[in-house]
């Protein structure tokens, strides 16, 4: 059913106030509140706001709006510490996605969001709907999505469950992104047993719009139509996995899985229809229906605009019969949007959505009451004041416990059991360093025709903006083992590495989105990890002029009381004025190789220590933010001057792995000259880059005068990687080892 106008008045007959459904009995209400996850004091506060017992729909609205997911009640006090402003930031956290200016009157919109729990329960649809949700956050702002990225963490790769989850997640991401026609251009994957029962699926979307055509959620205009567009509403996703649905169900129809099913075809139509309507002047405000569906979109639009809203559930397009107001308000059916239109624009909007074969229904009006009123079948199902729903939302400053500091581990603390060449061969084939080709080959990275650097070609993906030479660089980064060992150092490192990866392609890093994945915040050590990670991130954001413009928090990532590694995944975006300036990993023959940055031989938490010495120990490498900035600014200047043929940051695995990756990307060998021990070649000291240039002496001189540490590493050429001390490994052999791991692991899936 898709009514185009409200054929029933929102007030009752003859404008008499409409009758309300009776509130729940007090005992029943209290019991349900607990089942819905409201704490006793939170429920008491809701009663105070209502001044009476709630109806079922009201209780549902309070419980989802005050859930951790929607209210950020445990994380808000800490998130406030993150810097969110810069002259180029147009929209910061709080909207569907953040927006930065990128020059030529253009703006970039981006955000990253988690879909962790659903992806474990149902990997394909969990991951697919994660992609769909983040795409909607971005095109809701008026942007055409131009790229997707994803940051994935899986359990022990040897476990059958890990293979099954990974196969489903990769198929789901591909199945959704490939169909909507947004290229999947980058991301990252880690494996660790801490994710065995709780994989992480963090999806990021980047979009482009004109800087003066940003759409937001703040609804204004008394009497303006509230319009529902997209797919129909079903019973999927109501109240998430914690609800004991048997308590409510009137029949077995309600015992459905809580994971939503994605329809990328509907999403594609929704993107095109919304962008077509956005090109007109019809829209006042727009909001996607994500978590908590119609409830959060209705509350947020009216609340942000300082208005009230009346919604009539009779007009909501429904996928099945007999749905209650409670079910419709809490459904998380996918591919739906809510918008407020200017007076008289309904027909224009409807014609566009009909053309794209989507549902379109006026389901309500803006009021000046400051209340959200939900009606269904002639009765008021809910009537809640909006201001206290937000202002009195719970906010917790939970107890924190600091992670104990771990000892520093350097070369002299651990012997080299295997030698450099053997360690290198093992490392390039290890799960955290092996080629991700098996994954990329299932993602369409080229659709749109603007992808200049695809996965594996450079430290960041580079996507040109259609009809421009300007391009965006984008990356996702986090090193969870560092965060576990020292959350503050790890938080700092995650931001610095994103900045470094953007710099390594020549881009000017501009802003980040953060996806904070942690365990149970009610445990002081977990809340302490969160607070410390934020502190480290904030320091890096400030030092690097790299503010947070959007983000998402996912807590309670635990299975049987065991938390994941703290994983503050960072999505970074930078700007290249000319796509032709971007550099990648592939070195030309006969180039001089130069290391930028200082090497102390830091082995604590390194992959060498874990994979070769079998120890997950020590303090992670510290990031000196002043050195980070100085080294990065120097590297970027060299790249933009056209003096760099290839560039790769030194990260996981250390210096020798970095050079090996450049060899594998280009099929070109290298002869390395410095003598060094395992700490020198495999230490994970930060703020370092390897550059391939035609004139190494000139680069060393420029670095010296800029006060930047630099070291001649040797020359590219031939087809073997020659390490001082006589070892030579063929690049083909390295590549074969690097490429074999994932296909072997995933054989038979």
């Amino acid at each position, binding site marked *: 059913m898709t009514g185009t106008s409200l054929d029933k008045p929102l007030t009752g007959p003859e404008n008499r106030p409409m009758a309300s459904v009776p509130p729940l009995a007090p005992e029943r209400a209290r019991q349900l509140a607990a089942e819905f996850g409201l704490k006793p004091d939170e429920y008491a506060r809701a009663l105070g706001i209502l001044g009476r017992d709630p109806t079922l729909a009201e209780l549902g609205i309070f419980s989802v709006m005050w859930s951790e997911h929607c209210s950020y009640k445990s994380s808000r006090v800490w998130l406030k510490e993150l810097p969110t402003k810069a002259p180029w930031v147009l929209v910061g956290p709080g909207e569907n996605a953040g927006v930065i200016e990128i020059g030529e009157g253009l703006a970039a919109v981006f955000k990253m969001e988690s879909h962790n729990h659903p992806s474990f329960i149902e990997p394909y649809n969990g991951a697919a709907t994660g992609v769909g949700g983040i795409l909607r956050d971005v095109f809701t702002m008026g942007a055409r999505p131009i790229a997707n990225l994803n940051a994935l963490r899986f359990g022990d790769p040897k476990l059958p469950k890990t293979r099954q989850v990974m196969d489903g997640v990769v198929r789901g991401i591909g199945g959704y992104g490939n*169909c909507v026609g947004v290229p999947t251009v980058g991301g990252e994957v880690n494996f660790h047993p801490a994710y065995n029962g709780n994989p992480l699926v963090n999806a990021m979307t980047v979009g482009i719009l004109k800087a003066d055509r940003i759409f937001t959620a703040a609804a204004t205009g008394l009497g303006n139509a509230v319009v529902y567009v997209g797919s129909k509403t079903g019973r999927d996703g109501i109240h998430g996995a914690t609800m004991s649905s048997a308590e409510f169900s009137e029949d077995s129809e309600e015992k459905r899985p809580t994971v939503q099913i994605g*329809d990328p075809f509907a999403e*594609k*139509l929704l993107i095109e229809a919304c962008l077509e309507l956005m090109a007109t002047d019809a829209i006042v405000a727009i909001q996607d229906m994500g978590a908590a569906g119609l409830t959060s979109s209705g509350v947020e639009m009216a609340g942000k605009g300082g208005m009230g809203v009346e919604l009539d559930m009779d007009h909501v397009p429904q996928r099945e019969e007999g749905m209650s107001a409670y079910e419709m308000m809490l459904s998380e059916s996918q591919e739906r949007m809510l918008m407020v239109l200017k007076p008289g624009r309904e027909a224009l909007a409807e014609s566009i959505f009909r053309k794209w074969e989507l549902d379109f229904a006026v389901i309500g009006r803006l009021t000046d009451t400051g209340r959200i009123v939900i009606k269904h079948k002639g009765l008021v199902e809910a009537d809640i004041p909006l201001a206290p729903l937000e202002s009195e939302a719970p906010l917790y400053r939970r107890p924190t416990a600091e992670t104990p500091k771990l000892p520093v581990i350097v070369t002299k603390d651990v012997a080299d059991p295997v030698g450099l060449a053997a360690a290198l061969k093992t490392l390039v084939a290890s799960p955290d360093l092996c080629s991700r080709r098996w994954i990329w*080959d*299932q993602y369409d*990275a080229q*659709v749109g025709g603007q992808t200049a650097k695809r996965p594996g070609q450079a430290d960041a993906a580079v996507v040109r903006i*259609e009809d421009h030479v300007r391009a965006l660089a984008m990356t996702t980064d986090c090193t969870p083992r560092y965060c576990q060992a020292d959350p503050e150092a790890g938080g700092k490192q995650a931001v610095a590495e994103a900045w470094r990866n953007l710099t390594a392609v020549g881009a000017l890093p501009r802003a980040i989105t953060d996806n904070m994945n942690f365990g149970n915040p009610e445990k002081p050590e977990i809340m302490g990890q969160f607070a410390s990670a934020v502190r480290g991130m904030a320091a890096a954001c400030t030092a690097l002029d790299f503010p947070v413009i959007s983000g998402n928090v996912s807590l309670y990532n635990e299975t049987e009381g065991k938390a994941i590694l703290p994983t503050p995944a960072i999505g970074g975006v930078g700007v290249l004025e000319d*796509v032709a300036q971007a550099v990648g990993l592939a070195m030309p023959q006969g180039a001089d190789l130069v290391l930028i940055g200082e090497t102390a031989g830091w082995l604590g938490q390194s992959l060498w220590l874990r994979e070769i010495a079998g120890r997950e120990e020590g303090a992670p490498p510290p990031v000196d933010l002043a050195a980070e900035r100085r080294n990065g600014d120097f590297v970027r200047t060299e790249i933009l001057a056209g003096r760099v043929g290839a560039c790769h940051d030194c990260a996981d695995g250390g210096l020798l792995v970095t050079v090996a990756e450049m060899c594998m990307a280009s099929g070109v060998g290298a002869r390395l000259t410095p003598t060094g021990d395992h700490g020198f070649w495999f230490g994970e000291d930060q703020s370092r880059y390897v550059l391939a240039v035609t004139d190494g002496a000139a680069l060393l001189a420029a670095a010296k005068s800029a006060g930047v540490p630099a070291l001649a590493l040797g020359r590219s050429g031939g087809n073997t990687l020659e390490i001082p001390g006589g070892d030579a490994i063929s690049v083909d052999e390295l590549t074969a080892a690097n490429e074999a791991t994932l296909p072997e692991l995933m054989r038979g899936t």
Partner: protein
Amino acid sequence: MKASIVVFPGTNRERDMAIALERTTGRKPTMLWHRDAELPAGTDLVVLPGGFSYGDYLRCGAMAAQSPIMAAVRAHAERGGLVLGVCNGFQMLTEAGLLPGALLQNASLRFLAMNCTMRVERADTAFTHHFQRGQTFQATMAHGDGNYFCDAETLKRLEGENLVALRYEGENPNGSLNAIAGILSPNLRVLGLMPHPENCVDPLVGGTDGLPMFTSLAESFAAA
């Protein structure tokens, strides 16, 4: 050259195709909606672009093949007009009966998005005369259902009448019979292929291996 690109619900490579055509012909193609009943007067080339028309629900290209515009596309082909179907467009052409055979799911049962190498088997058509016969070139492929299949008789006819335009070189990425990547209609005016030459016309983005297909088309209508 007057080119038109048909947009179906779920089409997603129409802009890639428009950019490639404009870059090589200097002229913006006309975008048509699948509900249109007619082609613009004087249309030389109709392109059915890549994507997921109707979400690939039912079968890839099956519902799009029933769209109102397809009658006009068929009439255009019957008049000897040029029709290019890429990826989902190739699937539509087989579903509409404008080309024989069908595109089955990839032999690996996975969506594959990677570069593939093709060998040019016909360099004497409006689509390919800027290639050399036997020349190999790279293009992006991005499909879950590109495994070309037809009955033995059809295959014999395609090969016998030399209607295989493009064949995968080296590894056969999707299990296609005789490594077929693209086929022609008997009058050589309809070409369907799975890979995406439109993503390979720019040195900065995807390389230029696909350019000869578009310069061939442009030259075929240089006067038009």
